């Protein structure tokens, strides 16, 4: 686009009111601009011809009320989400149950250690401890054989 008049030609094309005599006079004398403009007009003619659709206007309007593809995708996503949610819930419930059981077991053990001194009695050798340990579970006299 060496010719500076091309800008003026563009402005006239922008206005849509056709080529003015002044620009036409330039086009008559400038083969570059003339050739360029003709090539551009040819392109626009082809573009218009290809983009027009006179026979399609008579087609019956068919609107797919439901987009099947999108619905299918949404349904699949929903199904996957539900499955994931159920799996996570089951896993969490199981983990929770285990935790509760472990906690109860730990509490029992702790209680026994605190109140009954289970481990120290089992491992201990002092009679007083052994007596304490057995006292709650036996209804008879115990003899340790160390008296």
């Amino acid at each position, binding site marked *: 686009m060496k010719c500076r008049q091309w800008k003026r030609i563009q402005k006239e094309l922008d206005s849509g009111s056709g080529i003015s005599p002044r620009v036409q006079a330039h086009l008559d004398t400038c083969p570059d601009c003339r050739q*360029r403009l003709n090539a551009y007009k040819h392109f626009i003619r082809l573009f218009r011809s290809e983009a027009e659709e006179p026979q399609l206007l008579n087609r019956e309007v068919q*609107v*797919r009320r439901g987009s099947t593809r999108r619905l299918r995708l949404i349904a699949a996503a929903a199904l996957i989400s539900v499955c994931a949610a159920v799996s996570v819930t089951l896993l969490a419930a199981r983990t929770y149950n285990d935790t509760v059981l472990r906690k109860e077991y730990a509490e029992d053990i702790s209680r026994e250690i605190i109140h009954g001194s289970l481990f120290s009695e089992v491992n201990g050798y002092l009679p007083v401890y052994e007596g304490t340990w057995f006292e709650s579970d036996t209804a008879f006299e115990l003899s340790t054989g160390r008296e």
Partner: protein
Amino acid sequence: MTDSECIVAYCDTEDDEAFKILVSRHRSFIRKVLFGVFGGWDEHAEEAEQEVLIALSTTLHRFRFESSFPTFLYRLTRNKGIDQLRSLQKRRRILGTVGLNRGGEGHSLSPQGLDEDDRILLYTILGKLREIERSILLLKEIEGFTIEQIAEMMNTPAGTVKSRLHRARTKAARLAEGGCHEMQTVEKNSKRA
């Protein structure tokens, strides 16, 4: 029925006939806009057209008559077209080769069609232009909108539209003027090979 009456009838009473009238009146415009977005017409553009019609049926009640209906429709159509292009994830490849592969496959919207050379020429240029350039050229030169109307449709300043239009025009003219013969020669040689 005017467009406004059709819109009101469809939104208020879900009158399908009103919707059909509205669509049949503007379907050509929708297709042309998509033609500009895709740089041609193929099954993806057709799918995008369906998406536009679905979106129109569901979003028409949101139209508040603050802008003109063509503006609303243009934005909806272009957005759907671009969404479709993005979803393909092959945008550059498609835009770069569009048309050249469509020579004899009847992908144009025109019932008569163009001859082979013109088709190669046209789609080569369309493939070289950016989507926005094609869209602006289509709106200005084919649909005959003014720069101000295009600016409103694209939600862009008029100066930007003007400079883009000039750039697109210069690019198209240069390709049409000089490059086409070379492109045609290259194309023919590649076909022979």
